[in-house]
C-alpha cells in the first residue's frame, strides 16, 4: 500500500517570501501525484498534478512542484507568497494500476504573515 508523509504540519512565512512544502511518498508501484489546497471551510481544490512527462509541473496561483522519483518526493514551491495563500495544503498519490486509491498526507498549514 502507498503512503504519504508531509514533513511539516505548519509552515509560517512572511508575505512575498519563498516557500517550500515538503512531501515524500512510499509505493511499490508507479504513482500519480497531486497537490490540493483547502481554504477555510471549503473543499479541496486541485493545485497541480504529475501524471507523466516533465518532472517540473506548474499549477494555479503561481505554485509549482517537482517530481523526484529517486527521492520519492514531490515538493511544492512558490517563489513569492501572498496573504491569500494562507490555507491547508495536501499532497496525495494514487497508484497507476491496481487499487487506484487516492491516499492523502496529513496536510501542511501554510500561514502567511504580513
Amino acid at each position, binding site marked *: 500500500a502507498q503512503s504519504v508523509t508531509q514533513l511539516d504540519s505548519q509552515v509560517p512565512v512572511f508575505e512575498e517570501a519563498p516557500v517550500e512544502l515538503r512531501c515524500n511518498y512510499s509505493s511499490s508501484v508507479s504513482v500519480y501525484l497531486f497537490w490540493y489546497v483547502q481554504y477555510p471551510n471549503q473543499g479541496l481544490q*486541485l493545485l497541480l498534478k504529475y501524471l507523466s512527462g516533465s518532472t517540473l509541473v506548474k499549477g494555479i496561483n503561481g505554485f509549482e512542484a517537482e517530481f523526484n522519483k529517486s527521492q520519492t518526493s514531490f515538493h511544492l514551491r512558490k517563489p513569492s507568497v501572498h496573504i491569500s495563500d494562507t490555507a491547508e495544503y495536501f499532497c496525495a498519490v494514487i497508484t497507476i494500476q491496481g487499487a487506484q486509491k487516492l491516499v492523502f498526507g496529513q496536510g501542511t498549514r501554510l500561514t502567511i504573515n504580513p
Partner: protein
Amino acid sequence: EAGVVQSPRYKIIEKKQPVAFWCNPISGHNTLYWYLQNLGQGPELLIRYENEEAVDDSQLPKDRFSAERLKGVDSTLKIQPAELGDSAVYLCASSLGGQGLTKNIQYFGAGTRLSVL
C-alpha cells in the same frame, strides 16, 4: 460548468439520531467518492462508486453507515445512528473514470461539516 455540489453545508444533530448527506457530481463523471476528513487530517476514502456500483467500500463502517447511488448520478451517504466520534467533514468527489491519464483526477465538493452533540 458546475462543480461537485454537496448539501447541507453544516449539520448539527444529537447522538443516536440519523443523518444524511447528498452529493451531485460533475456532469459526465462516472466515478463518485465519499471521504471522511477528521480535524487536522487528510481525507480518507469511505466508498467509491463506478456508475451505480460500489467498487470499494472496504473502509465504510457498515454497521452504521450506508450509501447509495441508484441512478449512477447523485449519491446519498447516511449514518444511523450517529455517534459523537462521527463529528467530521464529509467530502464528496468525482472523476471521469474510464481510460486515460485524466480518469483519476478527482474534483471535490465543499463538504458537509457534521457536529454530533
